[in-house]
């Protein structure tokens, strides 16, 4: 346990001192909130205040970016720099490393989500019920775990840090627009909606928004939960099968 705590604390420091990660994890989503608030601050979307509706989207966007880009890039970078190999040379059970890393990433996602929600509430008057936010944070943790696993899968497959970032962005950007995060799903053509409803970001926001905001879900919760579970399993399977401690020779 003591070993886990030291590794957890060290990884937390590494993440919180990484300026690029801080920018993309905190400054960028909060900047988005400020931008959206400035544009749509006084308007309503689907019968609720626009900022209340959009804030959930920004939280999910951040979770998605954290997995597809943040985790994937960080892991490939550690591998390219030989740091993973050095860790492998120590008698550290892989489970301890994975648990500490996962715990750090989840804690950071929670802090980021809290910061985003707080800014939206304090600056633009977004309204959420306390019990709704608490439940949404539990859902966010599960969703974050899924996206972390998908990020690990990208890292396992990508041959280099650059490739990892490119793959992450190629997945992240289309999903950003096809997930009901900012663009209401009703505005999509029917055929595109038929595809979009199966993507993990859509499923996560469709689970979180009804809990945080008084809007109905687009599809059954069990379907969203099952879909996220399957995406998580896919991430685990690919990451476990293709994980490498060092770059390909």
């Amino acid at each position: 346990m003591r070993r886990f705590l030291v590794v957890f604390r060290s990884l937390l420091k590494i993440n919180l001192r990484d300026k690029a990660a801080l920018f993309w994890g905190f400054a960028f989503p909060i900047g988005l909130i400020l931008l959206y608030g400035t544009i749509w601050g006084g308007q309503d979307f689907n019968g609720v205040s626009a900022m209340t509706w959009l804030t959930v989207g920004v939280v999910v966007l951040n979770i998605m970016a954290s997995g597809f880009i943040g985790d994937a890039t960080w892991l490939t970078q550690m591998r390219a720099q030989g740091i993973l190999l050095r860790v492998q040379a120590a008698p550290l059970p892989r489970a301890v490393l994975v648990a500490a890393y996962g715990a750090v990433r989840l804690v950071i996602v929670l802090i980021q989500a809290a910061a985003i929600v707080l800014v939206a509430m304090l600056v633009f008057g977004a309204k959420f019920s306390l019990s709704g936010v608490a439940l949404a944070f539990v859902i966010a943790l599960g969703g974050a775990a899924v996206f972390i696993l998908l990020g690990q899968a990208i890292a396992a497959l990508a041959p280099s840090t650059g490739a990892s970032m490119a793959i992450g962005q190629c997945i992240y950007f289309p999903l950003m627009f096809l997930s009901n995060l900012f663009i209401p799903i009703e505005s999509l053509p029917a055929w595109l909606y038929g595809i979009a409803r199966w993507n993990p970001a859509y499923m996560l926001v469709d689970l979180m928004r009804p809990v945080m905001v008084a809007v109905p879900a687009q599809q059954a919760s069990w379907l969203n939960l099952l879909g996220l579970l399957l995406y998580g399993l896919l991430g685990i399977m690919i990451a476990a099968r293709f994980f490498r401690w060092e770059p390909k020779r």
Partner: protein
Amino acid sequence: MQADTIIEIQHLCVQYNNVQAVKQLDLTVRRGEVFGMLGPNGAGKSSTLSCIMGLRRPDGGTVRVDGHDVARDPLAVKRILGVQLQKSALFNELTAVELIELYAALYEVFPTRAQIMALLERFGLAQKAGARAPQLSGGQQQRLALAIALVNNPQVVLLDEPTTGLDPQARRGVWAMVRRMREEGRTVLLTTHYMDEAQELCDRIGIIDNGVLVALDTPLALIARHAPPLSPQDAARRQPNLEDVFLALTGRGLDGEQSLVQDDEARWLATTT
């Protein structure tokens, strides 16, 4: 395994795709010695070291460290090894103290702040305790990597080209630390492609080329046995050295340049080992 043998490699084979990096290597390292693996880039030194460290499973043969089979019980082996890797960076966001604390924890060692400072002091880094890796010079980073290699008080220290890229002063600093490790009774196995380093530091040297051990002995014995006679001009200004031995045994320099010298015995060794 003999009592004074701490690392025993038998018939080791390592293959990458279609390239055989190590071919049926047999090697023993004695307890308490500084053993050097000398060879050009791509000779198979780092691959051999990776197998000893348990980072790579051999494609053939066995590696035993202090009686433990690395393939069967890698954790037991990793506990008694100190490791410095050739191409391994340090976490940029952690200070020297935090790095020691982290790597020690990986070995289930939890040093006090005073113990960490004593270790840094030993490597001349006490003043840099609060500095992060990018704030250290190349030599200081290498010394920190050596300090990290000792966090678990290892019996065997494996150093993969510990002085590559360092200036002469920093190299000599690393040499002094390796000598001190030997004085403390540790076994040191290092790889290098610097002839002077091998000659200066090592009790015994194994010369590896194309994945094959072409010679193994003390530096002086290698020179006595394998160095070809110097030309009158060379003899007037220098003694035969390991570079002459290497050229004679492999037919080329460490940079891969072909030599005119080709020792028959080297060719014979290469085909029989």
